[in-house]
């Protein structure tokens, strides 16, 4: 099982460029998440999805867009890259609760993005 796969692992962008961070999971999880981790900080939620066709904003959504056309994929798009978006980005997924017990999130290995 590959789990949660993120590509690319590293990327350098120029200010104003756009790019898409890819995330795919093979566990048939309903829920998927995008986080960013700034240096010396914990993760902050950007967007999440509870199923195909459904997305919602997290704590820090400005400057990002997402889509969820399939259960497996949850790409994150930066339209106009800014230096403040330099961060490590993590994708995560989890199954729906079972017997009212929360199912924990599984994380990808992260994408390190630098905006220069």
């Amino acid at each position, binding site marked *: 099982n590959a789990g949660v796969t993120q590509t690319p692992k590293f990327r350098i962008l120029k200010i104003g460029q756009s790019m898409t961070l890819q995330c795919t999971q093979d566990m048939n999880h309903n*829920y998927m998440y995008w986080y960013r981790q700034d240096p010396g900080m*914990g993760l902050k939620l950007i967007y999440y999805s509870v199923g195909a066709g459904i997305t919602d904003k997290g704590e820090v959504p400005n400057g990002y867009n997402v889509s969820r056309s399939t259960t497996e994929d949850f790409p994150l798009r930066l339209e106009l890259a800014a230096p403040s978006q330099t961060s490590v980005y993590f994708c995560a997924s989890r199954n729906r609760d079972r017997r009212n017990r929360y199912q924990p999130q599984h994380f990808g290995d992260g994408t390190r993005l630098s905006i220069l």
Partner: protein
Amino acid sequence: AQTVTQSQPEMSVQEAETVTLSCTYDTSENNYYLFWYKQPPSRQMILVIRQEAYKQQNATENRFSVNFQKAAKSFSLKISDSQLGDTAMYFCAFMKQGANNLFFGTGTRLTIIP
């Protein structure tokens, strides 16, 4: 909004010793979950242990255990018989039951000294 505070930016301990990492949180919710995540240099986030707020019994996972004090809003992690592979950043996290937003603390960098 919920806040999670980890007051120890860095800690170090000799191999085989026991270490306790502190975490406090602020919430008005009654039903929630608490987590400890480990982030080694490989960067991957690994769930170490979790606690449901409605459970009075402290969670344990092998060498890892927690001291959950709901009234004090405290959730510390104890690592017994520490190993070199325990060297990592440790993050405490909070989530309201039924919600989707995990709130993380700023982390504690733990170094196990041979």
